[in-house]
């Protein structure tokens, strides 16, 4: 009976060590091929036309002139006259050319007429949304310790009780907070290269979901998924926006079939930003009451948010975030806008919830003139008991790494250096990150070759390396002895890579498959050695008897016992409550230190400390790297990036790399990552890490800026304009 567990810390060879990405050299040298790089012979280039208007009715579309352009192979209208278009960039037509240039010229020759309709994009302006009929009451919740008396009106009681609690509070903060919509800005835009051969289609799709998209492509083409191969060895970023094949993925496959030749269709940068997903914004009025110790006693919030034309988006569940006082009321309003629909963005809902509510917690500290860290610490009484100790220890570690105690000053009371003031802030977060369903096929060749197959994908964060590390540990081999095959829908299925579910999923399945295969190999080795199979250990390139370490075989010798054919084992992982390999649920504490020029509103990162638990660490280097990436993304949405819409026309004004501001190396400051992995955390097994560290930076950096200036800059990103406008309003 195979026991599916990890080796003890003292017994590991490679598990938990710091290992380079096995696909690093391929990526650095350009030999790694992304969807964009795949150019089969006779490939035609497709381009798509986005609607220039944010809200309109398509009156007519005429493709005749486009069809006559030299080099144009095919033209397809993607919308019909009479169709309503609800956001700028929604796809109208497609032109396929012998060359990219011919396709672009073809697009320019398409004549479409539109009837403009009313446009609304100003999602921050609730009053305007209400006036425009774009606001709709959303979900909400009230939780009070006291219950209404018999026969007492519930709504009246609620108001009275909240009023009483606020009256009794030693400090009340009545604040406004916001976080703007951002887009995914994948380095590789969305799209695919599709090939058609003998009634089958291969889609080289830039996707976070190789196992789940074959059916999406096959169905519309009248194929079953067995006639579809989705292939993605490398993906240039997805962040939650590339789970589906999408209309353009299906279109490329359809065109390849209709034209009987390969077709490449990648979105332009501006279209990617306009139509391929955005993270919803959130704006909130928050009233919070605390006792004289700074412990929150009551919360009352109303946030409005948009998911695009359909409204909705930011869940009510993340308000208040992590620190939940015993009495709270939350309301939401859903605003419908003529902006591209939202998609999952790394840690859906959490970065917004954290930025909208832990800023209010920090404002309580400011109001009471207390140390922010102390207020967060005291509010651990308001987090689930099971995680209090974890947060407390992570706070202690973070504070030490930040040198918080020595650097702390009350809000707005720091010493200025010329016009520059510094400040610190913190935040804490949580995420689930349990493993997704995953299967792994392990193949051991009689010559010692070892490979595995999983219908998973590497988002760039190290999935290949994690799988190789798990199998190397399992078979007692070096990491480079394991050939990892992922990125094809023809391999045993794995879940989509989202929600931090991949590392748990693939670690489970590859450990299961590895141990199952090893057990079979051990049977043969045991027979040869005259040992008991249960006593065999695979380590250091050998399989040997743990009772007599001289009694063993080198790996190759062991494999030669397989005879003519390789040993192949496919196993499913078993994540869940009974698993000893993986688990779910993490915390995490972050602290930011910034400098702000009061005269220019420029905010510069000085230092950022992230302390993160993730259960058992598989590969320290990729884990740290993933946290660093998350912090940079967090700095981006805290200080730089935002989707800027023209209020009048609904045009996405900054839909190109030059205008969509992202931080550069000089904007990052010092990043300090500390992985929190004491024995009791390690014992929980593998937990996903992708989302958690990106949640806290908004609140932590906002709190640091507030600590520096003594004034809350309410809306992220805190650009020089935002900072100066805030200071000006304050002085007015």
């Amino acid at each position, binding site marked *: 009976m195979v026991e599916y567990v990890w080796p003890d810390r003292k017994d590991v060879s490679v598990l938990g060590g710091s290992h380079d990405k096995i696909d690093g050299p391929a990526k650095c040298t350009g030999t790694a091929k992304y969807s964009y790089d795949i150019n089969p012979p006779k490939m035609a280039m497709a381009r798509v036309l986005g609607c220039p208007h944010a809200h309109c009715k398509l009156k007519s579309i005429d493709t005749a002139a486009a069809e006559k352009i030299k080099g144009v192979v095919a033209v397809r209208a993607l919308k019909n006259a009479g169709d309503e278009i609800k956001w700028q960039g929604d796809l109208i037509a497609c032109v396929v050319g012998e060359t990219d240039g011919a396709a672009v010229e073809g697009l320019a020759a398409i004549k479409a007429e539109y009837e403009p309709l009313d446009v609304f994009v100003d999602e921050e302006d609730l009053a305007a949304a209400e006036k425009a009929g774009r606001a709709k009451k959303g979900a909400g919740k009230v939780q009070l310790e006291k219950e209404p008396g018999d026969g007492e009106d519930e709504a009246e009681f609620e108001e009275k009780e909240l009023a009483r609690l606020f009256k009794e509070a030693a400090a009340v903060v009545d604040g406004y907070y916001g976080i703007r919509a951002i887009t995914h800005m994948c380095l590789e835009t969305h799209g695919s290269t599709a090939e058609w051969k003998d009634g089958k289609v291969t889609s080289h799709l830039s996707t976070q979901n190789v196992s789940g998209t074959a059916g999406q492509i096959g169905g519309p083409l009248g194929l079953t998924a067995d006639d579809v191969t989705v292939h993605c060895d490398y993906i240039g970023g997805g962040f939650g926006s590339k789970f589906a094949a999408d209309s353009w993925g299906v279109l490329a496959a359809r065109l390849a079939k209709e034209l009987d030749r390969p077709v490449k269709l990648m979105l332009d940068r501006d279209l990617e930003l306009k139509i391929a997903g955005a993270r919803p914004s959130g704006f909130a009025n928050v009233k919070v009451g605390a006792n004289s110790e700074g412990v929150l006693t009551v919360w009352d919030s109303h946030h409005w948010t948009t998911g695009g034309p359909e409204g909705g988006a930011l869940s009510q569940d993340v308000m208040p975030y992590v620190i939940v006082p015993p009495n709270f009321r939350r309301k939401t309003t859903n605003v419908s806008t003529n902006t591209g629909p939202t998609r999952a963005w790394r840690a859906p809902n959490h970065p917004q919830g954290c930025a909208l509510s832990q800023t209010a917690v920090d404002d309580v500290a400011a109001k009471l003139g207390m140390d922010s860290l102390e207020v967060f610490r005291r509010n651990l009484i308001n987090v689930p008991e099971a995680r209090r100790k974890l947060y407390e220890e992570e706070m202690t570690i973070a504070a030490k790494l930040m040198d918080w105690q020595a650097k702390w000053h009350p809000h707005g009371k720091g010493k200025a250096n010329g*016009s520059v003031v510094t400040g610190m802030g913190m935040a804490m977060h949580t995420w689930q990150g349990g493993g997704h369903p995953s299967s792994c096929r392990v193949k051991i060749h009689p010559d010692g070759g070892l490979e595995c197959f999983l219908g998973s994908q590497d988002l760039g964060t190290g999935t290949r390396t994690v799988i190789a590390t798990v199998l190397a540990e399992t078979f007692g081999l070096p990491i480079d002895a394991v050939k990892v095959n992922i990125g094809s829908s023809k391999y045993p299925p794995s879940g989509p890579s989202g929600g931090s579910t991949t590392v748990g999923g693939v670690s489970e399945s590859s450990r299961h498959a590895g141990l199952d295969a090893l057990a079979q190999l051990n049977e043969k080795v045991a027979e040869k050695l005259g040992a008991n199979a249960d006593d065999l250990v695979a380590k250091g390139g050998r399989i040997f008897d743990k009772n007599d370490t001289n009694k063993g075989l080198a790996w190759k010798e062991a494999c030669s016992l397989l005879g003519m054919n390789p040993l192949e084992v496919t196993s499913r992982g078993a994540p869940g409550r009974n698993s000893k390999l993986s688990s779910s649920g993490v915390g995490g504490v972050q602290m930011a230190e910034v400098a702000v020029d009061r005269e*220019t509103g420029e905010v510069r990162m000085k230092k950022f400390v992230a302390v993160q638990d993730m259960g058992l660490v598989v590969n320290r280097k990729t884990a740290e790297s993933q946290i660093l990436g998350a912090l940079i993304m967090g700095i981006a949405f805290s200080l*730089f990036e935002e989707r800027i819409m023209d209020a009048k026309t609904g045009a996405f004004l*900054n839909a190109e790399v030059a*205008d969509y*501001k992202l931080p*550069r190396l000089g904007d990052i400051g010092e990043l300090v990552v500390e992985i929190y992995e004491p024995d009791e955390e390690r014992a929980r097994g593998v937990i996903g890490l992708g989302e958690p560290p990106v949640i806290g930076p908004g609140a932590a950096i906002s709190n640091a800026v507030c600590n520096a200036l003594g004034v809350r800059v309410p809306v992220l990103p805190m650009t020089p*304009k935002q900072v100066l*406008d805030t200071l000006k309003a304050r002085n007015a």
Partner: protein
Amino acid sequence: MKAFEYASPRSEEEAVELLAHSGTSEVLAGGTDLMGLMKKMIITPDRVVSLSRVESLKAIQADSQMFRIGAMATLDDVLEHPATRNYPALLQALQAHGSLQMRSQGTLGGELCQRPRCWYFRNGNGLLTNRGRHVAEGDNRFHAILDNAGPAKFVCPSRVAPALIALSASVRVLGPEPGDETEMPLELLFRTPKHEGQREHDLLANQFVAQIVLPAVDGRLSASYEVHHDAGGQDYPLLAAAASLAMRGGVVADARIVLGQAAPTPWMSREAIDAIVGRPITPQTAEAAGEAAVSVATPLSHNEYKVQLAKVAVKRALLKAAGLETGGFC
């Protein structure tokens, strides 16, 4: 990108001839701006004339009287030339240019003649759309705070023009006939267009900037100061100022103070100059010059913060020129 003719002349005369064309033509220098505009089909010339093989346009010559920089010298060529160190405002403007790619591929002439970054223009809405109402009623957070009453509300994007103008640079322009040339003060190259179709300069299609000429520095102090969203200066500044000062007896005898990213042209601030001439440079007089510079500002609906930035940029450029502490991160 629309199909176009490509010409690669070997001499200045040939370049002028090839630019005279029945259709539209564009000058290609480093290509960092033109290629993007052509790809987005914001500009669709029938002919592109590359100057990259006209060797005479790359020359940089310095003597005790003049510093002559060919328009096709890259920003890095200029930055690395020893004579540039005599002109702190120019040196600092080039150093502030944080993009290695732009510095090594972009040319000085191209930097001066690049098109505005206005996002309405870059999204295909034209430069002066609807007599400027599009910008006035839209998101103008990066637009002009000076000289913006007409239809032009964009800002001149050049990052070196304020320094060069402060340093009294002139430009040598070739054309319209082969052998023709004109030299004029750099500030006269720029204009605020009044009608759609007008460029940000009034050169004819077969005229181009061939050389930038700086007079001897003659003991003048100078400096550039840029305010940035990003720390590394890879993005365009939010606002910039350059100053050059002739000091006599501890007071400013003559000054040239030029704002960048503030108006449709590099903006010579008479008000700031008047406020500082006859005074020593101190934090107080520099502040007063900054106040004076923005006394005529007319911010749009979303860019009032740029008034504050202009004030600070002028103040800090003056302090920096005088070798005093500027405050801020620099």
